[in-house]
């Protein structure tokens, strides 16, 4: 009885057809003395035998023809559904594209236009500034020409200072009285 577990494993091997002849003989001789194991093996074998021999109704004559017809119909339906799905997808993509184009025209493009106009305005403002500088430069050159060699002579004594020059340019009186030589030196 103590080694019944070993024989239970042997029963499984016997049903798996993996037990060899000596194992089967050992199992048989054990079952002669152990009624519990004999009963268990009988139940196991009975269950398997009945499971295998259990009848199944033969398929009807039309089984194959019906199955083939249904399978081909299912395939056609599947292909049709795939086609419809692809059309739906294409339609949705077209609608999405329309929305994108409309959105571009209505919101994004005007925004870009404003931004571009701002850039152009900034450029134009720079051009205005350049014009101002050009005018200043011409005025200074004219001034140098009018004053002549006096300005050049005065250069050696006073180093030019841009801040003072600009201040002087803005404040016309002081420009004429104190810093005129420095301005001439800078632009020459």
């Amino acid at each position, binding site marked *: 009885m103590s080694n019944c577990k070993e024989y239970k494993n042997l029963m*499984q091997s016997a*049903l*798996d057809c993996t037990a060899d002849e000596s194992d089967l003989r050992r199992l048989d001789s054990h079952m002669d003395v152990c*009624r519990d194991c*004999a*009963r*268990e093996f*009988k*139940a*196991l074998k*009975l*269950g*398997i035998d*009945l*499971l*295998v021999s*259990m*009848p*199944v*109704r*033969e*398929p*009807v004559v039309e*089984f*194959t*023809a*019906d*199955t*083939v017809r*249904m*399978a*081909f119909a*299912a*395939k056609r339906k*599947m292909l049709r559904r795939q086609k419809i799905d692809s059309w739906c997808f294409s339609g949705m993509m077209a609608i999405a594209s329309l929305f994108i184009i409309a959105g571009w025209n209505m919101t994004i493009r005007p925004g870009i236009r404003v931004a571009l106009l701002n850039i152009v305005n900034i450029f134009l403002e720079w051009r205005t500034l350049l014009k101002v500088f050009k005018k200043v430069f011409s005025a200074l050159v004219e001034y140098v020409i009018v004053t002549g060699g006096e300005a050049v002579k005065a250069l050696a004594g006073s180093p030019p200072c841009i801040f003072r020059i600009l201040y002087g340019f803005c404040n016309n009186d002081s420009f004429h009285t104190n810093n005129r030589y420095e301005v001439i030196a800078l632009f020459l």
Partner: protein
Amino acid sequence: MTQSPEIASDMPNLIKRACAGGEDAFARIVNLYRYSVMRYCARMIGVSAEDVAQEVFIKLYLALDRFDSSKPLAPFLFRIAHNHCIDIIKKKEIKTTPLAADPLDEQEIQIKDDSPGPEELIQRAELQKAVQNAMAAIPALYRSPLVMWHVEGISYEEIAEILELPIGTIKAQIHRGRKMLQQKLMEFVVINGDLM
């Protein structure tokens, strides 16, 4: 699962022809496997095996484009059959019921049984009913490899391939399934070894 070498060598050609829309080629495939599939579905689900087998073949045809025709078809077909049966059991579309509930089947049992004794016939019918009930009570997890191994004669390696499980797990499931079946039938086996 085993098929003649001619059929095995012709199978890739049949599959290609079926994929291309050849009804006769697919009809040959259905004829080859219809009984195996019906038997498997009948033992897995119990009833409506014909309808279930038809659905399995429809699924096979829809998936045939994706199948590598250089490989054997049977494991692929049984995988579809297994998954379909499991789906049905999970959905509880069909409650697992004893097989021979159909009067036609009972009639067949009587025809197939060679022993003429009425007592033995009753005994056998009762036993078969007990096995059917026992099979219905076994979880699908254990029932499927048990049927594949004992009824369809599919090897452990192929069952492992079909169910996508390791061979050790398949062996353990078959052992457990047998044990469950045995426990349900113990009451029919008396001490002296005779039935009933």
